[in-house]
């Protein structure tokens, strides 16, 4: 029997090839976006893991202490620990070269005598006259380059390469090159090796290392050695396997990855509506056929299976096409994501070609097929539930009643209320999957009430359209009144697409406003000097001398050195902003809450307490008066929390402390930002140029005026959301496919009606107008319900998602101006979507349409 049903299905596909193609394309686009993001994401993580793995070499354990490093004395302790076969110190930093287009170069400072035991360096014997180039690195200012980098910039042995170090530009002599294997593969070959002790001097690390890589002796389990080392080493120094470090890198970019992943589901979700729409249409078109099949003895199950297997096949084809397209797009997605993690998190990932991850293929394929089957589920169930006798007559009216009944409306509203209540009152610690499950209940409720909303909207719009668009306007709206289910599926697809567009726009706007407010409170110096054009550089810093030089410039009133770093905190990380508390309090007192300023100012400036960001307090459940314990290289630091302030630079939370306190405990006087206050009347731009002249050629410094600095931070916010915008565009494109699909079907279903209008004197132009108006009405209703759903989604994103991911909620702001702007945009887009169906309708043969003969 199933063979016969398949035959019917294929005949139907032949007769409705455009609908089938558009539906499959909807699924393919959804899967493509999802797969591209997943693959881009996986490639990014692979790249982060591979970088850590290659740089770690054969090391089984790594010793670190946050970004500020630790005393080199620890190396002796480690080497003296029983069970350590060998241990090698490392300084790892990113440096700018004097080549304009070279990007950053990873400098690996290693012990020239023993590092080859750990890491794989394959030297170019043709380029190097020595048997062991690493030995030569002990000569000051010597450097080894990857062959890739040397070739790209025409560097040979003996050539000079200029690098920007903390105290200015330094020249290095190229002593040799290594092949693009092992370490040479990292960062696409943008890697250089130098002596660790030279690196200490050049990059002003004092007598500290960033890391020690070590191998356990044979017969000593890694875990045992790890415990042994932990017992030996001071607090704040961590001993972990290399994979834990790469996991930490992965965790650092989690918020971005999750955010992007969420939006990648949107396209797939829109695809579900397209499938639902398509199958609702298919069932509508095939009433009689279903009735006949049921009448001749096809069971309900087989009717349902016939539709579901159609959906399955479309899902399979759409998913395969989507995976192919997604793989093609994944390189672009990965490029954008790499840019984002570098800009926002300071994590540089190696550019690597996208790899086809079978697990990602399986997930995308399964989701594509599942989306297709889920979308077809209710229409298939509806088809199976037809009474054969009624199906042979007029079933549409009966079904419409059941779909649009008040009971369904009530259950839809109940789901919306229940889902909203669950989202509002469930603690955020339950995590995003649970919160998303609750949000899905709201979306399900909205979907259920949608046909009724479409019907009401259409009834309200009918007299208006009748007045504006004449009889064509009324007829256009009538299509929605006649088939609210079909229209509501398209409206639903638009609703989901626009819901995410509006809420993302709203979230970004809210976020921007929040950041603007925060910047006005906290970032109020006249000029800023930064080490990187990204939010921060984790490896390149200034020294305090630069601040002193700037302070000596005429017109400068005051200079403030700021250290912005990350430290280990309770198994995770926290950001630390070490600032000269005196001047910070002078400028930003109003931003601090939770404490009486007169009583805490003295304590803060004397390093007797710290401030924490709100998201830190929320993440770790601490408040004013609680004592924080921070493990620093100089020992355990315990200080009370004296107040809160808003800070959005780290989703892990930020601790503010006096710079002197930080320097004392972390033995780190690096500087990431220099805040400059000018004397009254001094021109910011003129002074900016002076500072640029001072730093030019010596420091890799970026000088901003206050306004430029704020604009730069805003541009980072935009960059953070770039990929979200791109995905939403695709989601809306899929929704547009839904409009085209719906209109084509509407034209097909109203063939007779259109024929009658033509027969009694309707011009082709009037028919085109009728169809285009229908497109506009669908789009308009989509904008209305999309903005309602968008408001709900905005609340969800700005409160729940933001709270879970970043530890702070974003004030609710709904971008009405954006919604209003979307009306003409969506109208134009829907007119474009309606153009082909309208043309198709206008060219219809009247005689065939009205069924003469």
């Amino acid at each position: 029997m199933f063979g016969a049903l398949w035959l019917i299905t294929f005949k139907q596909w032949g007769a409705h090839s455009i609908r089938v193609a558009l539906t499959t394309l909807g699924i393919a686009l959804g899967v493509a976006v999802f797969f591209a993001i997943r693959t881009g994401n996986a490639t990014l993580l692979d790249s982060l893991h591979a970088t850590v793995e290659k740089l770690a070499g054969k090391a089984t354990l790594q010793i670190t202490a946050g970004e500020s490093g630790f005393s080199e004395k620890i190396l002796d302790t480690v080497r003296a620990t029983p069970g350590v076969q060998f241990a090698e110190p490392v300084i790892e930093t990113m440096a700018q070269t004097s080549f304009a287009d070279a990007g950053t170069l990873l400098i690996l400072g290693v012990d020239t005598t023993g590092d080859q035991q750990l890491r794989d360096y394959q030297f170019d014997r043709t380029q190097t006259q020595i048997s062991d180039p690493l030995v030569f690195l002990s000569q000051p200012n010597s450097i080894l380059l990857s062959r890739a980098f040397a070739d790209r910039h025409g560097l040979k042995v003996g050539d000079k390469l200029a690098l920007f170090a903390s105290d200015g530009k330094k020249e290095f002599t190229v002593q040799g090159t290594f092949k693009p294997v092992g370490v040479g593969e990292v960062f696409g070959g943008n890697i250089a090796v130098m002596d660790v002790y030279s690196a200490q001097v050049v990059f002003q690390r004092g007598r500290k290392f960033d890391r020690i890589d070590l191998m356990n002796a044979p017969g000593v389990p890694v875990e045992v050695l790890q415990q042994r080392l932990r017992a030996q080493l001071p607090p704040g120094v961590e001993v972990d396997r290399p994979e834990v470090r790469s996991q930490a890198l992965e965790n650092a970019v989690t918020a971005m990855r999750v955010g992007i992943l969420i939006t990648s589901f949107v396209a797939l979700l829109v695809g579900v509506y397209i499938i639902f729409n398509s199958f609702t249409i298919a069932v509508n078109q095939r009433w009689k056929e279903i009735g006949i099949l049921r009448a001749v003895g096809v069971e309900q199950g087989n009717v349902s299976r016939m539709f579901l297997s159609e959906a399955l096949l479309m899902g399979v084809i759409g998913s395969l096409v989507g995976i192919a397209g997604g793989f093609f797009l994944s390189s672009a997605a990965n490029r954008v994501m790499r840019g984002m993690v570098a800009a926002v998190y300071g994590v540089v990932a190696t550019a690597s070609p996208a790899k086809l991850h079978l697990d990602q293929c399986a997930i995308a394929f399964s989701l594509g097929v599942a989306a297709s089957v889920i979308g077809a589920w209710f229409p298939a169930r509806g088809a199976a539930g037809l009474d054969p006798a009624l199906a042979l007559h007029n079933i549409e009216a009966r079904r419409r009643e059941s779909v649009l009944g008040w009971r369904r409306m009530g259950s839809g509203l109940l789901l919306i209320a229940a889902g909203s209540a669950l989202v509002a009152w469930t603690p955020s610690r339950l995590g995003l999957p649970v919160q998303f499950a609750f949000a899905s209940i709201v979306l399900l409720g909205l979907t259920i009430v949608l046909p009724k909303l479409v019907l009401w909207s259409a009834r309200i719009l009918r007299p208006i359209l009748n007045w504006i668009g004449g009889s064509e306007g009324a007829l256009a709206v009538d299509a929605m009144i006649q088939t609210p289910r079909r229209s509501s599926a398209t409206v639903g697809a638009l609703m989901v697409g626009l819901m995410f567009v509006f809420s993302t726009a709203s979230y970004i706007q809210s976020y921007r406003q929040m950041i603007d407010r925060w910047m006005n409170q906290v970032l109020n110096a006249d000029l800023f000097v930064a080490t990187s054009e990204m939010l921060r550089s984790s490896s390149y810093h200034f020294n305090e001398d630069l601040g002193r030089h700037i302070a000596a410039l005429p017109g400068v009133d005051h200079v403030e050195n700021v250290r912005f770093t990350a430290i280990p905190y309770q198994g995770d990380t926290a950001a630390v902003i070490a600032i000269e508390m005196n001047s910070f309090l002078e400028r930003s007192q109003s931003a601090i809450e939770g404490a009486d300023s007169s009583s805490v100012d003295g304590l803060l400036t004397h390093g007797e307490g710290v401030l924490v960001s709100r998201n830190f307090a929320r993440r770790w459940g601490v408040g004013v008066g609680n004592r924080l314990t921070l493990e620093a290289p100089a020992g355990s630091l315990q200080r009370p929390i004296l107040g809160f302030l808003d800070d959005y630079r780290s989703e892990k939370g930020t601790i503010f402390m006096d710079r002197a306190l930080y320097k004392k405990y972390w033995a780190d006087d690096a500087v990431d930002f220099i805040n400059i206050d000018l004397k009254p009347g001094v021109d910011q731009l003129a002074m900016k140029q002076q500072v640029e002249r001072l730093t030019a050629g010596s420091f890799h410094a970026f000088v901003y005026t206050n306004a430029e600095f704020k604009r730069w931070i805003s541009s980072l916010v935009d960059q953070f959301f770039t990929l979200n915008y791109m995905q939403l565009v695709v989601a809306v494109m899929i929704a547009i496919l839904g409009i085209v699909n719906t209109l084509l079907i509407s034209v097909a279903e109203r063939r007779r009606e259109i024929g009658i209008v033509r027969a009694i004197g309707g011009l082709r132009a009037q028919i085109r107008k009728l169809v285009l108006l229908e497109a506009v009405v669908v789009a308009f209703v989509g904008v209305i319900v999309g903005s309602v759903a968008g408001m709900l989604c905005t609340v969800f994103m700005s409160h729940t998602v933001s709270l879970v991911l970043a530890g702070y909620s974003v004030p609710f702001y709904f971008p009405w101006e954006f919604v209003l702007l979307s009306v003409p945009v969506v109208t134009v887009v829907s007119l474009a979507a309606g153009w082909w169906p309208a043309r198709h309708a206008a060219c219809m043969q009247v005689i065939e349409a009205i069924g003469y003969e």
Partner: protein
Amino acid sequence: MFAVTYMIQLSNVCKIYGDNGAVQALHNLSLTVEQGERVAVMGPSGSGKSTLLNLICGLDEPTSGSIKLEGIELSALDDDRRTRLRREKLGMIFQTFNLLPTLTALENVALPLRLQGLRRRETEDRAAAMLERVGLKIRSHHRPDELSGGERQRVAIARALVFRPPILLGDEPTGNLDSATGEEILRLLDDLHREFNTTVLLVTHNDLAAAFCDRILSLRDGQFVKEVHTGRTGTASAGEP
């Protein structure tokens, strides 16, 4: 001498379907219908009745020959002009009524006027008057599925005549009705013909419907084979009892 302008004039009209001339629906058909005349075309299925009607409506084009409505050559007009001609000169009633299911009776009747671009208030007033004329004022706001077959055909007639077309074309106007309702519809058409002096061309199987006309033409295999004058007055003047 003045040339006579016929309301409908067909000269040597041929219609062939299919690429290889597989089906010749009409053979050198010629016909003239004067103003106010009522003509019935009868014939078995496949004789070419509907093809003839489609060609006169301008919904289809002849393979050869000439068709003129009020002296206007249809083949000289593009699709839009033919459509305009249709909505200004031709009222059409169908066996299956062909009312738009989503529109009320009033809206259906007003539709041709609205398509002509008349103001809504005016179209509604004229449609209401026309519905009153066909006895359906109280059903103005009902949709077609809330009306009986006879009522639907009355609405269709009202729609066909609301813009006072000089020509009324009917395709089996009583074909879907029981005989009593069919007679009622024919009486209405008769009254309206007297009132508006419309030229009528009916395609029908129904002897009773044919008898309502002044002239009956029998069509067989695409050719007129017989012409009968019923003796009724073809050019009734307006207001004639």
